């Protein structure tokens, strides 16, 4: 199974963690390439932190196997693992200064003081804390604590760095700066990063691949772009981005398009690989920023009659909230200035449009809805369907689906 050449850095095989009465992590399988930045994203309670604690060795798993660079580390105790965790609240030692905090991991074994000092200083340089080495932890700001926590973990040269919502305690501005910093440090050291967050902006802007988790299971593993554009499951469609979901029944399938009868009328969707069968209940997903507000749609476009319920001006864009005829909530994001839509009254009837190419179908018995979402082999060899779970360890940008091009 594991050839030395394209051996994954980290490999999870059906990792499961059961607590009394519930399953926190349910048959999670994942392969991570060396030097990859993988974000695990999901709502609170989805098992992402438990999974991270299992990777760190702070929690045992009920069943499954964990491999790091081919070695089975499932039963290796926490202090002998080659992973390091960056804690959500930093967990810096308040009785030690910055230097002693960073040096902590290095001083646990017999060591040469000069060597330790050199490595600590080099790492402090990398995270920009060189001038603060004699400060006490209580004297640091949130961003500085974050840097120290990062340095303390990285100075021990871990094979994999685990990060548990490291930016959640920072203010918005600092978070943006630290995102850039994290990416820079990750690329400079080439260390594999596993980054747990509930914040999709963080996940999408830093990660090479994003793992979306729900109720202990992996819903989708893909590049940020593809998760955003083509969510595979209901959950991902609702959790990620601002998507509109139309429930309906497949009425016709031809070579290029699938027609779905929804509450407000028929919607046409461009085919991508495997298509649902006629009569199946499916969900059509359209991103809010792919919807257009106009008196009449273009040729071939889908038209949805709606009632305006609210409008929000967010700087460079307007966010509209509509109700469809059957009560479906519809969101529309338009890049327009504030004034151009000012005359519309609440409860005004109008139509919104979207192109068949901007819509996708989920929830049918094809690849996306496969219940055993963790079993990579189970994904049918559909031409354009991206791998559902556990993509090949050699990471290449997933090709655009053949059907997406007009």
């Amino acid at each position, binding site marked *: 199974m594991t050839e030395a050449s394209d051996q994954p850095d980290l490999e999870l095989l059906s990792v499961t963690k059961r607590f009394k009465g519930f399953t926190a992590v349910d048959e999670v399988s994942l392969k991570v390439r060396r030097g990859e930045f993988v974000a695990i994203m999901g709502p609170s309670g989805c098992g992402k932190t438990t999974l991270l604690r299992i990777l*760190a060795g*702070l929690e045992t798993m009920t069943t499954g196997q964990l491999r790091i660079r081919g070695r089975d580390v499932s039963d290796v105790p926490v*202090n002998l693992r080659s992973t390091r*965790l960056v804690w959500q609240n930093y967990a810096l*030692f*308040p009785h030690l200064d910055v230097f002693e905090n960073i040096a*902590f991991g290095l001083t646990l074994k017999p060591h040469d003081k000069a060597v330790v000092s050199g490595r600590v200083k080099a790492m402090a340089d990398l995270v920009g804390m060189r001038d603060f080495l004699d400060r006490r932890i209580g004297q640091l700001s949130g961003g500085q604590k974050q840097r120290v926590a990062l340095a303390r973990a990285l100075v*021990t040269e871990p094979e994999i760095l685990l990060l548990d919502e490291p930016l959640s305690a920072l203010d918005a501005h600092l978070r943006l700066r630290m995102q850039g910093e994290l990416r820079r440090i990750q690329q400079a050291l080439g260390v594999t990063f596993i980054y747990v967050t509930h914040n999709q902006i963080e996940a999408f802007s830093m990660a090479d691949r994003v793992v979306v988790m729900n109720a202990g299971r992996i819903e989708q593993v893909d590049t940020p772009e593809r998760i955003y554009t083509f969510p595979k499951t209901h959950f991902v469609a609702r959790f990620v981005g601002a998507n509109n979901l139309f429930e309906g029944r497949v009425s016709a399938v031809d070579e290029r398009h699938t027609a779905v009868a929804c509450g407000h009328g028929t919607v046409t969707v461009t085919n991508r690989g495997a298509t649902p069968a006629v009569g199946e209940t499916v969900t059509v997903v359209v991103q809010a920023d792919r919807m257009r507000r106009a008196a009449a749609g273009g040729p071939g476009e889908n038209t949805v009659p709606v009632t305006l319920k609210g409008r929000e001006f967010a700087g460079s864009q307007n966010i509209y909230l509509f109700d469809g005829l059957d009560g479906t909530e519809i969101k529309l994001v338009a890049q327009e200035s504030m004034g151009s839509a000012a005359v519309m009254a609440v409860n005004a009837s109008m139509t919104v449009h979207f192109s068949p190419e901007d819509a996708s179908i989920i929830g049918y018995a094809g690849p996306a809805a496969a219940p055993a979402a963790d079993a990579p082999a189970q994904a049918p060899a559909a031409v354009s369907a991206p791998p559902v779970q556990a993509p090949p360890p050699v990471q290449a940008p997933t090709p655009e689906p053949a059907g997406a091009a007009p």
Partner: protein
Amino acid sequence: MTAAAAGDAAIGAPARARRMRTPNDSPLKILCLAPIVIWYAIFFGLPLVFLLWIGFWRVENYQSIPDVSLQNYQEIFQNWVVKSRYGLAMLQSFWVASTTAAIATVLSFLIALALVFAVPARRQRLALLFVIAPFWSSYVLRLYSWQTILSKNGVLNSMLKAVGLDDWRLEIIYTQIATRVGLVHFLTPVLVVILYVTVINIDRTLIEAARELGASRWQAFTRVILPLSRFGLITAASFALIMGLGDALSGALLGGGAGASVLGKYPLYSAMLMTDYASSTNLPRTSALATILVVAMVAMMALGVWVAERARRRVSE
């Protein structure tokens, strides 16, 4: 704002020029302190002032005469080492109290660690209750119990005899070892509470973080738990030291008045004080002796607070 003004008017509070008060700010709350202040003033402050004052009185013809004289102190310090041996008693007191404090602190720390880390969270309160239960029985009663256990033909020696270990008879009753046993038993419940609060407040993620960085269990203990317990340990130890210095009962009932220690057969200073009070009519001298003990204890307390405060500042700065 106008609504608030109207509300004020409605409840009949005309706008007056006065400092704004928060809802929690009541001028009456200071009165809550009155009972304790009065209690302390009458039953602690006043007697203490008397004690200090009487120490400067003079005795003539078996009569205490109010005065401001250093005669008592002169007499005491002249006999500090010889004759009445006040100094040796003070040394004995410090020796017994400091060793007792060390033993009680270590023992209580172990109990506190066990409570926090070995007992499930929801059973900890109950376990703590069991640990401090002895505190609710009479101190004198406990000392008499220890007498029964430790005496020459007591429970302990009878048991040793029963299992055929006649040669291993423990001769510790009426030595300072027995004094320490009584004191440790007296102090442990209080120290456990102090140290339990200290240990339970150590952030568990810090321990996990240390382990995660490669620390063994022992290293996590010595490099995280121990330094973060410093404030509590110093507080507990100074509390034990002060209680040990002031206590006369254990020394009298278990130590036999002048029990032997490695320093020799000297009584504790507090026991000597009691004897002095009971056997002589020289109340001013007894007061002077007591004042010296009070000064020693305050000095110990100040030292303890200073060291503990330094430990605390090091962590929370």
